[in-house]
């Protein structure tokens, strides 16, 4: 098994380390051959049964490494929102054309790679995606159990609302006078509605639910929120292009 990071905040890796003993026990079940946060053994050109890849391919070197990893891996699993959907770095793509983020940040932009943010599955074949920003450590342990046994699991196709209501939260879309734009009804659950537990509306870091009824959802929120506000909310975690791909014209 290998855990590889492209360009990222590395939060998904730390989510694993934060599991403490339970992550260390999980490691006993596998042969961990590459995880640069944890070891610096000589790099070997082996093939891997399973590789977890975190982060966005932002540099040319990231792209080369990603393609190399895909060749050497039987199963490739993307870890987290950046790898699965583009993540925070994709905000660059949604900016007004007049803005040039690269030139704003760097006086000497020439030699800096500034590739268009792509989801990893647009570059190489991805066998499974563990979503979230960051990933949920508990969910990782559940899914990884199947993955290291060579099975491709399935995340139950339920919206965030399922867990949110089970937690007894008041629905933010129904608070009289104080409604918040929560994407929960159209986003894949499995996070325990963790943001909603802190009264933060869902901004979709786990991606759109497979058979989400977007039209019904838009009707529900249309009285208070414009389509522009809706699309802006989708931009934070790189979900907007996914939405446009699936539902353009509807």
């Amino acid at each position: 098994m290998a855990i590889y990071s492209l360009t990222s905040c590395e939060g998904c890796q730390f989510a694993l380390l934060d599991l403490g003993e339970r992550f260390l026990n999980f490691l006993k079940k596998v042969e961990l051959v590459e995880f640069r946060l944890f070891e610096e053994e000589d790099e070997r050109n082996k093939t891997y049964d399973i590789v977890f890849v975190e982060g966005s391919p932002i540099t040319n070197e990231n792209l080369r490494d990603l393609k190399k990893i895909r060749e050497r891996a039987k199963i490739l699993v993307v870890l987290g929102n950046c790898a699965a959907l583009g993540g925070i770095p994709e905000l660059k793509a949604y900016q007004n054309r007049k803005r040039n983020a690269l030139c704003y940040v760097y006086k000497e932009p020439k030699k800096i790679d500034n590739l268009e943010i792509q989801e990893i599955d647009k570059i190489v074949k991805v066998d499974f995606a563990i979503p979230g920003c960051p990933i949920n450590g508990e969910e990782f342990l559940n899914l990884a159990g199947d993955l290291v046994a060579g099975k491709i699991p399935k995340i139950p196709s339920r919206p965030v609302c399922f867990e949110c209501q089970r937690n007894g939260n008041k629905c933010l879309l129904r608070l009289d006078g104080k409604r918040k734009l929560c994407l929960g009804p159209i986003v894949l659950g499995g996070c325990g509605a963790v943001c909603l537990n802190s009264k933060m509306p869902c901004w979709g870091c786990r991606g759109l639910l497979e058979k989400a009824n977007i039209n019904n959802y838009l009707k529900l929120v249309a009285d208070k929120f414009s389509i522009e506000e809706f699309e802006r909310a989708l931009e934070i975690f790189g979900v907007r292009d996914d939405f446009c791909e699936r539902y353009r014209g509807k």
Partner: protein
Amino acid sequence: MKTFKIPHIAKMEGHADFLALMSRGEVTKAKLCVREGARLIEGIVLGRKIWEIPIIISRICGICPTVHNLCAISAIEKALELEVSEETKLLRRLMLCGQMIHSHGLHLFFLSLPDFFDLTSDLKLIKKYPKETKQAIALRGFGTKIVEAVGGRTIHPMNSEIGGFKTPPDKRKLAELMANYETALEAAISLAKLFKSLKYPQFGRKTNFVSLFDSGKYPLSSDEIFFNGEETREKFGVGEFYKKIKEIQTPGEVIKRTEFMKQECYLVGALARLNNNSGLNQEAAKLRKGFSDSPDFNIFHNIFAQAIEAVHFTEEAGKIIKEALAGDFDGTGKKYKMKSGQGLCALEAPRGVLFHYYEIDKSGSVANCNIITPTAQFLNNLEEDLKFCAPEIFKKLCRDDCQKRIRTLIRAYDPCVSCAAH
């Protein structure tokens, strides 16, 4: 001309190589070549609304998201001229304590300690030192659960917001933390004793120590900065200091290095804080006694300094949790009116002083943003240290040991390369 390269330094947050150039026995260059991509965070927040910023900004870093989140929030509050309640300030201090504890715990045990036992893998470390592993995990757990109880989640907390907090802290979670306090403190003290007993390489290049300052205290936030150096030994207002920082970008480099008043390099982080401040809590002060002279110029002691801070901030967290349990938080943040303005905040992140600066317009959109991270500030100091000790290392040690010593030094800084690149 000979080159000495260590590619892809492991057990460090982010991606970088080490490169040294030697000519006629002299080390002409010692560089940390950063391989991180440019996520352009300061650029991509332009035009976003201020309530989106804390959520976006914590994603700069996965090990120190809390301090980025709180620094952005405070800077924006300054721009809005918004004062928060004492309870909010208390809870934010508690989150920062949790941040310090779990970040230091990770770096000390999983990233730096293996260097002192000549181990190349944490898997070997945890097998050989199971008792210490349990202690490190217990200590880290205390820190991560503090951030979770107050901030909603350890990595990328979302309960903190402009004006305060979305919900009050879960008192049951706080009570659980208090129940684990003694265990956490024992673990921190035990680890600090372990780090006190390690054999650190000799090192003594004089440098400047920079940290926040608050007379008699050990501050995580302040309006004052202490530049403690040989030529300049002065206290500055945070705004004054920030204006005097020059950010320098070399073509092709994604990290902007910093220079202060033409003094090329300075150190931020645990060792700088320890050199600059008094006000350590009781157990931390006891452990620190007799370890080294003051000021301490041995950069390897930054590791021990973090161990001392882990004890100090555990004690600090204990005090604050007691106070929080006794208090009654209504959990609603202060409301604010949108206005244009500019705001700067400096906080102590685990690795050193962090600056966040925002200009906002009257519609609540970000017009300008600048972030200076601790790692970006100490990179020049790191390279000067490498250049300073490289000749002796190359002369006295075999190639393998050279690699080990250089890696140990780099890791002693606890660089956070993703942060620095943002």
